């Protein structure tokens, strides 16, 4: 099996190399052919008239291009086969393969054996290649949309494929054979990865990371070909939205996994690996906004090109950080030489992009004209600045320990307090723009219109802020908030108030639009709002994403009010936290083929009333000889009661229980669902709005300027 796996990987590399080279040759001859069209005055001098092999290639360049496309498609088949072989080896407990030995064991449950594919360095690189060739497979199948642009994108993707498949074949081989005696059982999968979400979190995250290669490939293709018009932006935007959705899903699945498995009561630790996923997400989000400027007004062509490149580049940089060991992280894979490969690949992609940018930058010149600072255009400019600044802050914070070591000889830690201090004010400014931006019109917005649109949402936000401050603290969570007690409370109050402002402005947009349709069609307001959304799914799907984002932010704002308690609990012992009282009813041990477990049964009372039992668990995995906690979490809209079985007092056998009371955490997970629904909605094609002759006729008589609305 290992030999077959190795062969398929080698075949995939060969096919990718062919796809790249043949595609490149075909495109270069097609380019020369285009340059020799009769309309070109200098055409006859460009192509040598009598070069036997060259002439043959020129004549059959389209056929060559087709073979390159088919080789690219076949490379997906080869990588898919290699991945299937690795998974089958995991299910067969084939410990002759070193990767399987290090990441699996006989008693590992089936779903986790499947997840072995992405549980270690080599397997995850194979999985990365599988997704990359998978995306490229879809792209190559859809080539008829625009054969020339797709051919360029296919070649760019083949180039990236070559890099990852070379890594797999020469530096991180997943089918490497064990040396010496064959072990009876494997070392087992890391216990922290033995959790249902771990079966879907990495695929989602990787779909996000890898997916940004596609917009980059299109951007590079458009740059090289000096692609006319904005069609490539339309094609790229949909790919970017899908990819962005996957990355969003992956990031929050990771956060939920950290919350549910790691047992420290939090979901985000500003670890370099977490930051690595956040950076491309931020630039990708900036691109999804700024791309509208190019579509509607033909502006920011250079900026968009760089944003697409930066997003791809940051995704690879994140992988470099994770794999090179250059920056210490609790998540990082073992330090290995593949960091150098990534470093060189980063340099190479930068050089290639920079070369074509410098060569063809004149093609990206656009007519920038702004009428007013109070316009959608300027709000997008500030929005992009803040997103890129947030990305820069995260990048700066991630690298600062290394910079400090180089400058002053000692490392420093850059953890949550740094990011809270630097990034939160920027995020609050972004929240203000999220509220203001959608209400600004393209070109110019009058002060009167701003006042009209903002008055009620602002009053609503102020009322909520006052309500939070005057409610009694005994209500728990964010109630009774005194912003002058602590800067984190102030940030929370600002975040919640601004989120309410965003929600109200989004709601008013739906309501006003729905009312207009209702007035003209006689439908009910809700049905009109549904129709409104269906007529412009991108705009209203985007608003739903904004709504989801602020629901997430309300959840994040709750972190300032978290509490925790820790106690050794024998039979009948009690512990209080917030309105809850915990009573230890029992504790015991259990054994399964994969692990030993210790667990406690805790009765929970809220304000003196019994509300149920919770059972935090601690496991000891036999194969890996590692422990892991499985916290028990009782979630409500207001707060999560989060119990961790931390360990056992060796003297008396009593469990040590840590209780966290985390405010508003459920809002985060709800917000993510809303974001994903909004993203899905934005991908749905628009319904046609019925034409209204009288208005059109009047406007036509008046010969209006092409004022664009929407989005």
């Amino acid at each position, binding site marked *: 099996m290992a030999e077959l796996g190795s062969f398929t990987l080698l075949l995939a590399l060969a096919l990718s190399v062919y796809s790249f080279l043949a595609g490149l040759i075909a495109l270069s001859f097609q380019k020369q052919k285009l340059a020799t069209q009769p309309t070109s005055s200098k055409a006859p001098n460009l192509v040598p008239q009598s070069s036997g092999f060259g002439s043959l290639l020129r004549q059959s360049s389209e056929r060559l291009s087709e073979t390159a496309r088919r080789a690219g498609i076949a490379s997906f088949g080869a990588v898919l086969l290699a991945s299937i072989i690795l998974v089958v080896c995991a299910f067969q407990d084939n410990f002759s393969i070193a990767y399987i030995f290090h990441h699996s064991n006989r008693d590992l449950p089936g779903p986790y054996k499947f997840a072995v594919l992405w549980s270690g360095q080599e397997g995850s690189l194979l999985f990365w290649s599988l997704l990359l060739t998978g995306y490229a497979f879809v792209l190559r199948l859809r080539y008829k949309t625009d054969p020339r642009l797709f051919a360029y994108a296919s070649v760019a993707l083949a180039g990236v494929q070559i890099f990852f498949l070379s890594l797999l074949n020469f530096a991180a081989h997943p089918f490497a054979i064990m040396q010496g005696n064959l072990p009876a059982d494997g070392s087992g999968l890391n216990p922290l990865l033995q959790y249902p979400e771990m079966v879907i979190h990495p695929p989602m995250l990787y779909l996000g990371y890898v997916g940004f290669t596609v917009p980059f490939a299109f951007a590079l293709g458009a740059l090289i070909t000096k692609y006319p018009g904005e069609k490539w932006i339309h094609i790229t935007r949909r790919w970017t939205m899908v990819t962005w959705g996957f990355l969003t899903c992956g990031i929050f699945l990771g956060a939920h996994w950290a919350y549910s498995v790691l*047992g420290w009561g939090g979901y985000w630790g500003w670890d370099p690996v977490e930051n690595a996923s956040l950076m491309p997400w931020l630039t990708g989000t900036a691109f999804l906004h700024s791309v509208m400027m190019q579509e509607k007004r033909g502006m920011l062509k250079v900026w968009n090109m760089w944003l697409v490149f930066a997003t791809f580049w940051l995704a690879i940089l994140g992988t470099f950080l994770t794999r090179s060991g250059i920056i210490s992280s609790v998540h990082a894979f073992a330090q290995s030489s593949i960091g150098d490969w990534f470093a060189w690949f980063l340099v190479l992609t930068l050089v290639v992009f920079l070369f074509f940018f410098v060569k063809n930058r004149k093609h990206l010149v656009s007519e920038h004209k702004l009428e007013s600072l109070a316009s959608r255009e300027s709000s997008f400019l500030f929005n992009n600045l803040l997103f890129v600044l947030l990305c820069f802050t995260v990048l700066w914070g991630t690298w600062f320990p290394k910079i400090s070591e180089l400058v002053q000889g000692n490392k420093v830690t850059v953890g949550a*307090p*740094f990011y809270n201090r630097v990034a939160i004010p920027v995020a609050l400014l972004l929240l203000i723009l999220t509220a203001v931006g959608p209400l600004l019109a393209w070109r110019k917005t009058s002060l009167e219109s701003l006042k009209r649109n903002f008055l009620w949402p602002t009053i609503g936000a102020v009322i909520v802020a006052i309500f939070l401050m005057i409610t009694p603290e005994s209500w728990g969570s964010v109630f009774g908030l005194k912003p002058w007690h602590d800067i984190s409370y102030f940030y929370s109050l600002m975040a919640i108030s601004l989120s309410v402002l965003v929600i109200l402005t989004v709601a008013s947009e739906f309501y006003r639009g729905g009312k207009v349709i209702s007035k003209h069609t006689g439908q009910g307001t809700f049905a009109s709002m549904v129709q409104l959304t269906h007529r412009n799914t991108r705009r209203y799907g985007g608003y739903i994403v904004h709504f989801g984002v602020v629901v997430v932010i309300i959840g994040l704002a709750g972190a300032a009010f978290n509490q925790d308690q820790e106690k050794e609990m024998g039979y009948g012992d009690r512990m209080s936290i917030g309105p809850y009282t915990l009573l230890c009813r029992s504790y015991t041990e259990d054994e399964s083929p994969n692990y030993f477990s210790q667990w406690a049964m805790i009765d929970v009372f809220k304000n003196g009333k019994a509300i149920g039992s919770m059972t935090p668990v601690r496991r000891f995995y036999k194969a890996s000889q590692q422990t892991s906690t499985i916290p028990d979490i009782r979630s409500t809209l207001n707060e999560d009661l989060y119990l961790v079985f931390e360990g056992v007092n060796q003297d008396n056998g009593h469990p040590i229980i840590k209780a966290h009371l985390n405010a508003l955490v459920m809002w985060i997970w709800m917000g993510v669902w809303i974001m994903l629904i909004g993203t899905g909605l934005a991908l749905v094609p628009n319904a046609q709005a019925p034409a209204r002759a009288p208005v059109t006729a009047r406007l036509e008589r008046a010969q209006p300027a092409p004022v664009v609305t929407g989005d």
Partner: protein
Amino acid sequence: MLILCAVIFLIAGASDPASRFSDIGHHMMCICGCNQILLECNHVGCPASDGMRGELMAAVNRGDSDSLVEQAFVQKYGPTVLAAPTGKGFDRVAYIIPVIALILGFGLIVMVVRAWRNRPAPAIAGGLPPIRASELDQFREQARRETEL
């Protein structure tokens, strides 16, 4: 908002020992290698966190100032014990650079917006005269009237 932040920064601050313990403890790292904030380290039998928490509690109860406590921890455990760069020496650069980037970014955008506003309107193909701002306002008003509730 920035001014409000600054005011809150000045007047806010924990004063009672429990709040100070929590505040300082959340600005320090456990040094066992878990990469977690000191008060969030959740390993039973962690070789470091229990002792560090004890030292922190003792220092807070003695009435040592925040900076004195941090200094003592840095001397004993090294600079990585602090969860964020300090505001002294080269560490200040960590905070200054993002602020400079923000100011430069804002300045750049304001300049760009001003330059774009002062540009003449692009000529429309076909010899049509460019639309005047007053005409645009007129059409906006018309659109507003027709879509008014």
